[in-house]
């Protein structure tokens, strides 16, 4: 009896320990260091608010956050649109499970190549003399190479959509698969047209999936730095990139203060999403 009551605690112990050591402790360290002081050479224990002061009062921070939000909103909207329809197609139009699985794998294979190498390969794809420009010029669609394709906000968004759409597809697909087909039939029998079925039956039932996918995409974009750096050719900033720069210059306390602010914002965003849907129940 006692053992069986104890069992869940024992079973949850490894997870708890790992998260305590590699999540709680590091974040506590970040919070602590964010109050430390530093000069161009060293960081030293202290309790100062200058890191927060400098971060919050600087217009750079605000611009950077606005820029990051801009990316987040655009990427979220695009991945939601694309992700929903891809998931919808897989869930409702592909009938055999095997085929669904095969198509899913087809979508995941590009992610098996090292991300860094994929980033580099966007240059020959989108560049001035790249594959896309040459194809378009060969087809006579354009006679001047399109410059905005690379090293621009467009390029950043494109690469992020490329990276993160699948994080949207998977949870939405998961919820769509669990929708009772009888409900759809019932709606049709009651005279609903395709659009009404979509907006009144399917989308409301797909909400948990949409919420989970949104959490993935929002947090991934908010914390991204490598995509922004590569795809904007170093011309745009994001919060992650700002932190990465500060870390590179050994300004850990400043980076830590930035990290704490970023963390709070991300938690608020996710908290907001979680208020709308209880994902634990809906999984």
């Amino acid at each position, binding site marked *: 009896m006692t053992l069986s009551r104890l069992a869940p605690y024992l079973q949850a112990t490894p997870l708890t320990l790992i998260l305590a050591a590699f999540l709680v402790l590091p974040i506590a360290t970040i919070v602590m260091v964010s109050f430390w002081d530093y000069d161009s050479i060293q960081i030293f224990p202290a309790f100062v608010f200058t890191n927060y002061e400098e971060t919050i009062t600087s217009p750079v921070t605000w611009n950077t956050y606005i820029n990051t939000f801009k990316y987040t909103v655009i990427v979220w909207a695009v991945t939601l649109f694309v992700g929903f329809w891809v998931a919808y197609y897989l869930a409702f139009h592909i009938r055999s499970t095997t085929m669904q699985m095969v198509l899913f794998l087809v979508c995941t294979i590009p992610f098996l190549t090292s991300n860094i190498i994929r980033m580099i390969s966007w240059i020959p794809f989108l560049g001035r003399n790249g594959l896309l420009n040459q194809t378009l010029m060969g087809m006579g669609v354009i006679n001047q190479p399109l410059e905005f394709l690379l090293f621009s906000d467009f390029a950043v968004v494109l690469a992020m959509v490329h990276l993160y759409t699948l994080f949207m597809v998977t949870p939405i697909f998961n919820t769509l698969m669990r929708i009772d087909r009888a409900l*759809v039939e019932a709606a049709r029998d009651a005279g609903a047209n395709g659009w009404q079925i979509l907006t009144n039956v399917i989308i409301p039932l797909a909400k948990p999936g949409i919420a989970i996918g949104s959490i993935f995409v929002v947090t991934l974009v908010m914390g991204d730095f490598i995509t922004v750096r590569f795809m904007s050719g170093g011309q745009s900033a994001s919060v992650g990139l700002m932190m990465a720069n500060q870390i590179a210059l050994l300004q850990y306390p400043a980076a830590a203060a930035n990290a704490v602010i970023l963390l709070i914002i991300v938690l608020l965003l996710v908290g907001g999403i979680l208020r709308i849907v209880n994902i634990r129940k809906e999984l």
Partner: protein
Amino acid sequence: MNSEKRGLGFYILTAFFALFVLFLYGPLTTIFILSFQGPNGGLTFPMNGSSVHWFKNLLFEQQAVGDFGGAFSRSLILGLMTMMATVVVSLLAGLAFRRRFLGSGPLFYLTIASLIVPSILISLGIGLAFQVFGLSPAWYSSAFGAHLTWTLPFGLLIMFAVFNRFNPAYEEAARDLGATSWQTFAHVVLPIILPSLVGVGLFGFTLSYDEFARTLMTAGTFNTLPLEIYGMTTNVTTPVLYALGTVTTLFSMGIIVVALVAIAVLRKRRARKVAG
């Protein structure tokens, strides 16, 4: 929509899906084509002849900088470690969450938090924590932990999805037949969820294998493969990078195929058992 005849929507969505796949494969195609550059070719178009020179260069010759082989084996071992730890820990946690226990709510939200805390923050935090405590980071300790904070939430979410749909009747039947709880687990629960566990493992491996940001400040003396590739970009400007991309992709595909075959075999065996 599930009517016998394919409607217009089907064709529009098929075209949409095809475009999406095309988009996903754009960079991959570039990598693939460019890895066959001629011996004097670069990382960008135009092609400068075509050859398998860079594959030979990758596999049989030493590079000017870096150590692909070492980095690759570290990444492989780390991926396998992460895979096993993810499977075991998330299975245990998944079992725990099937019952009520004190602190289950906070633990759940902590796990979700682990998923949403930006990677670079985890990396910085673990790096700083190791520094503050005077420990030396290494790919098998600090980076391992950093990867787990990323793979475990995925693992746990999948386990939730599995157990939410798990029919307890099987277990009750086993218990009624006098099976101990261990026997019930080993002979009833485990075989049913095994394919999902393979999925969790696969997830763990691929997420860890290509993880960059979380490894950046936690790897210690030696590089993992993504770090190595990044470091090599400070010197290497030849298509050998693309050849590496092509080879590692084929390798990962190989792993997936093996996993799929494993799932298929397990399913078949289960089906046979059930039938027999």
